[in-house]
């Protein structure tokens, strides 16, 4: 029971890390290696806000999300679109976008360093126990979990119940055919990329309540998000959510039942095993 609750809480954390990247890769086809840095930016925004105002960091979402949206939209328009137009095929775009966003992550780190300095930034918020079935759990993690669930659900509903969401799913499934139904693919991709960035930054805000951040930490989140997105299968947001929770449960189970030293090893074993059985991820499909 304990394992399940802790695992779910951790899974919620992972979902926050991965959902934005899922949108960016699944729809806009950009494997964004600067994803972790965007998350760190969101977290820094919340930390700065909390330190300055002493108000709940949740309010930081009000300015972090729109800023992240605009910044990511601009990144797509200025940096990614030329690559998309230049790429002769998907493989070329993948290589180019991996290289470009890797460079972008350096730029983000450089900017964060200049603005916030290099030291650890952390604060304490809702770091109190909350009892579920008599066992204590961190209230801030529960809050982040609820945020994560809300975000996942919101995203899911939006993708499946609105025309705009349907548009994005159509691009994810078959970008070549999307133009045939009058979808402005570059614009919709920019929207997806911006939305993904906003979701990632929102994740950063929620995670800042209990994780410690520094300017160079982004790569850890990027790696985790990549693993989750790939494990889930790149073109379906449900895959990423499922993968995040499977990962959270596995890590917790291994940490509790086997050895905490093997948690991350177990995560990667799981990742590799899933790819060996389903080379296109949990929800992925081989292109027909």
């Amino acid at each position: 029971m304990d394992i399940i609750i802790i695992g779910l809480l951790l899974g919620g954390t992972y979902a926050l890390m991965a959902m934005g990247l899922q949108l960016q890769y699944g729809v806009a086809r950009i494997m964004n290696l600067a994803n972790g840095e965007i998350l760190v930016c969101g977290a820094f925004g919340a930390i700065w806000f909390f330190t300055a105002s002493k108000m709940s960091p949740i309010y930081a979402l009000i300015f972090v999300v729109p800023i992240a949206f605009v910044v990511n939209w601009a990144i797509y328009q200025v940096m990614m679109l030329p690559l998309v137009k230049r790429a002769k095929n998907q493989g070329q775009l993948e290589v180019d976008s991996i290289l470009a966003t890797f460079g972008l992550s350096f730029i983000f780190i450089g900017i964060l360093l200049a603005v916030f300095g290099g030291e650890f930034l952390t604060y304490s918020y809702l770091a109190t126990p909350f009892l579920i079935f008599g066992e204590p759990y961190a209230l801030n993690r529960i809050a982040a979990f609820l945020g994560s669930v809300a975000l996942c659900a919101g995203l899911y509903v939006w993708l499946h119940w609105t025309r705009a969401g349907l548009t994005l799913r159509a691009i994810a499934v078959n970008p070549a055919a999307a133009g045939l139904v009058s979808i402005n693919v570059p614009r919709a991709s920019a929207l997806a990329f911006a939305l993904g960035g906003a979701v990632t930054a929102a994740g950063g805000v929620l995670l800042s309540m209990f994780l410690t951040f520094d300017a160079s930490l982004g790569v850890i989140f990027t790696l985790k998000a990549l693993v989750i997105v790939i494990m889930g299968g790149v073109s379906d947001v449900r895959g990423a959510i499922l993968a995040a929770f499977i990962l959270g449960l596995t890590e917790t189970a291994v940490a509790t039942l086997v050895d905490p030293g093997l948690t991350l090893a177990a995560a990667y074993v799981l990742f590799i095993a899933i790819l060996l059985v389903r080379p296109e991820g949990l929800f992925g499909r081989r292109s027909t």
Partner: protein
Amino acid sequence: MTGGEKRNLIISVLVFLVAALLPLVNNGYWLSIGVSVAMYTVLATSWTLFSGPTNYIALSTAAFFGIGMYIVAAFLDWAPYPVLVLIAGIVGALFAAVIGLATLRIAGVYFVIFTLGLAELVRQIVAWMQHVMGTSSGLYVLISMTDPILYWLLLGLSAIVFLVGWWIGRSRLGFALRIIGNDEVVAEHSGISTARAKVVLFIISSAFASLTGALVAPRWSYVEPTIAFSPFLSFQVVIMALLGGVHRLWGPLLGVIPFTLLWELISANFPAQTTLLLGVAFLLIVYFIPHGVIGLIEDMIRHRHGMLGSVVSTLQRWKSGNA
């Protein structure tokens, strides 16, 4: 051997001999750059042996590099260093064989992230084993290895990489790879076991990474998981190779040299904004040298205008594409 090949061979030997003279000319700063260049030449060229023809972007260099380092660090008390270097190569090859055979079905971006995960997995396991086995002594590699010797060893290793690459290029295996790179279906139907060809190349490529790790270990003196399995190493190798061009054996070399010098230039002259400027330089490379240095040179030769002109025309193309 044709006349052209003979000429190329002679030129290559001369280039290597000239390069080998470096420690005699400068035993300090330029030698340390030379070590860096030689190390990345081995890594990037051997990476290209596999990833060039197959178009599989492998981010597993750090995994094999780290394995090589750790083999030296862990067993230095039990075996002489040269033996350990050989063992490192063999273990790297065996590990690559297992991984290669297991992962043939994985392709595209899945393969990229898979190999990245692989490096992380190895790192986690090594770190955990260090705890369980309680071998804190294995972390230090305190044997003397002067820069000139390391440089010559790495240079020798890169010569071997080039020879292997050259041999592969002339062999049936090389021909098979060119066919695979063009069209895997045709390759299969021509009787080529594409799986075997890829695994063999992956093994060769990975073994060189392990050897490099084993050679560099004494230079770093102290081995810890975060350093030995740094994902940046994998990325840097890929980037250097792509910057040079992966469709020629000597392509990566043309990436390694300018890349190392550019990095050095930035770190030396802009110490406060190194990371930021590296990022900017990176983007400029991606946008304006899209086909690698080789592409740039070939472009130049084709259009008979200078390097600047070529960059300008890329810029124009980019701008018009952007508009």
